[in-house]
């Protein structure tokens, strides 16, 4: 791989997103949805982002695109920091998003061609009506929709087809980078595989870079080059996909991976699951120090006192844990 390929397309440095939650009259409390996350994504790469509900993975995706204004931290794209309003506007022509729910993320009053055409209108990416129409049909072709679908409404489509419409919309501005927020979790298994393949094919054809957010670890493993694991707003582990599956180091990653039901009866029966006790703490009352310590079998006093550093333990394998041995 050349140096150019190794250059990160997107860099996130110590990103924080705190929401103020109203706790009654004049009182509010910060909910630290994302609390100091750093990573980078290379051009053409797929980074999988996994974690359980409330861990902040969706917020990371949205904050990168500046759908929320970051509380602090930096987002760098192609070697340039996204800071001003103009930067954000330019950035959004290169970076888009596919949403989880294909039912609520499409406007029921708009036809398919208007849904896909809206980003073109917003960013004024055509010079004539004819050009707009051609571009919309081309995009529909990319995602396997027929031209006769153009004048229909979203409710006339199945879940899988709706997700295709959402993907076509994300592709409209000709982006380099797409945040895919649980794009297949609302779909049936047989349809899920079709959509995953489409993501693969589009990546090859258009040279896309993905941040693929999901909670289904089998799907993430299939599609990702590298995988990052989040817990309560913090990144706890980041490594190559195969590395993290074969040698997870953080106790949370270990239990998360062992909890995945394997679709193979013999393996499933023999599988020794690492059971976690209790539930995920509320991010409003996150534990001091390491966020995982309340459920961690190895937790010690040190874990309560300080948050372990997110450090590289072997080439490309980052972990945040005090007890690495």
């Amino acid at each position, binding site marked *: 791989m050349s140096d150019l390929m190794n250059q990160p397309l997107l860099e996130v440095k110590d990103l924080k997103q705190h929401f103020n939650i109203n706790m009654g009259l004049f009182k509010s409390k910060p909910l630290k949805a994302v609390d100091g996350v750093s990573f980078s994504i290379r051009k053409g790469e797929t980074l999988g982002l996994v974690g*359980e*509900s409330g861990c902040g993975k969706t917020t990371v995706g949205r904050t990168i695109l500046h759908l929320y204004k970051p509380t602090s931290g930096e987002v760098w794209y192609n070697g340039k920091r996204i800071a001003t309003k103009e930067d954000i506007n330019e950035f959004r022509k290169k970076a888009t998003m596919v949403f989880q729910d294909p039912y609520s993320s499409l406007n029921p009053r708009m036809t398919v061609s208007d849904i896909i055409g809206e980003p073109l209108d917003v960013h004024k990416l055509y010079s004539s009506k004819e050009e707009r129409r051609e571009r919309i049909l081309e995009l529909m072709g990319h995602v396997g929709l027929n031209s006769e679908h153009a004048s229909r409404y979203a409710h006339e489509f*199945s879940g*899988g087809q709706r997700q295709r419409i959402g993907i076509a919309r994300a592709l409209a501005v000709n982006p380099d980078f797409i945040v895919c927020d649980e794009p297949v979790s609302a779909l049936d298994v047989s*349809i899920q595989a079709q959509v995953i393949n489409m993501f693969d094919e589009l990546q090859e054809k258009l040279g896309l870079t993905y941040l693929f957010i999901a909670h289904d670890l089998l799907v993430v493993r299939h599609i990702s080059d590298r995988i990052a694991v989040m817990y309560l707003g913090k990144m706890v582990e980041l490594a190559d996909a195969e590395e993290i599956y074969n040698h997870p180091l953080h106790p949370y990653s270990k239990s998360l991976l062992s909890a995945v*039901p394997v679709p193979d*009866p013999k393996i499933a029966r023999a599988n020794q699951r690492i059971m*976690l006790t209790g539930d995920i703490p509320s991010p409003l009352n996150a534990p001091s120090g390491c966020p995982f310590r309340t459920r961690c079998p190895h937790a010690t006093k040190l874990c309560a006192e300080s948050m372990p550093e997110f450090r590289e333990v072997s080439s490309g394998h980052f972990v945040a844990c005090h007890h690495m041995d």
Partner: protein
Amino acid sequence: MALLEVKDLHTSFFTDAGEVKAVNGVSFNLDHGKVLGIVGESGSGKSVTAYSIMQILASTGKIVGGSIKLDGQELVGAGEKVMKTVRGNKVSIIFQDPMTSLNPTYTIGHQLMEAILLHTNRNKQQAKERAIEMLRLVNINEPEKRMKQYPFEFSGGMRQRIMIAMALACEPDILIADEPTTALDVTIQAQILELMQQLQKELGMAIIMITHDLGVVAQMCDEVIVMYAGSICEQGTADEIFYNPRHEYTKGLMRSIPSAETAGQKLRPITGTPIDLLNMPAGCPFAPRCDAAMKICLRERCQRMQINDMHQAACWMNVKLGLESGELSLDNTNEGSDAQ
């Protein structure tokens, strides 16, 4: 005699657009203490099959044919009075969404005791003791204190534990679990599945596990039914279904799951979209999406055939293979089809 015998069950919904045959000729048996998995995609009829057993269908839904026998007693057409003695006592159900299946305005204790008082002869004090005992059984800490709390004070995993406690309070013979872990995170899902397995061993009830997750099936089930468009396409022991699938739909389903081997490769999805239940084709409902479909698949539906004593499938491919290998001949195909 099997604990539950479902024979040629037909359940339809009568909508403005026409009759939707949600369950279309489903037959299976369930023995004491067994875990039966029903898998299928949305709209395959797996939940409606369960709701038909409990007779808790929406007002537009109706059982239009077939028989459901519980311990030899016919439930189809038996009336509300009989069903009231069945629901909760003999057959219990837990639903997918623990957030909406508890009443937010009553305490957990009230809701648990309500179920116990309704179905048993216990008095209030005994019911309370039983409720606390059940909470302890499903690993809820400080059950006495928890009894006085409202559903919003519990997490999703704990609410599902409470639903399980409620369902098992009257020691049913059958527990129907309708996607019990779909709304939960994986680590919480693992806890709930383990709890269900442990309770199943302790209390010895049979479980019908309805899910779309083949991983959950592999972990939990002795027997598996695969449903598509309201019919059973394949049924057998978990090992048979996973290692020797004999219906093209099951094969396609297995192929389309991502795994360690598929990393970096293309998945092999089932093409097309699920069938419209209002416009069912004459032949096999899966034929329009099937790569191996033959002429006969489009014309005529294949009856369920015995593959071996632990395995049945309704796929013309098996007839074709049988004819080619000489195990079947044209005049005994019909006998073979009737084996079911």
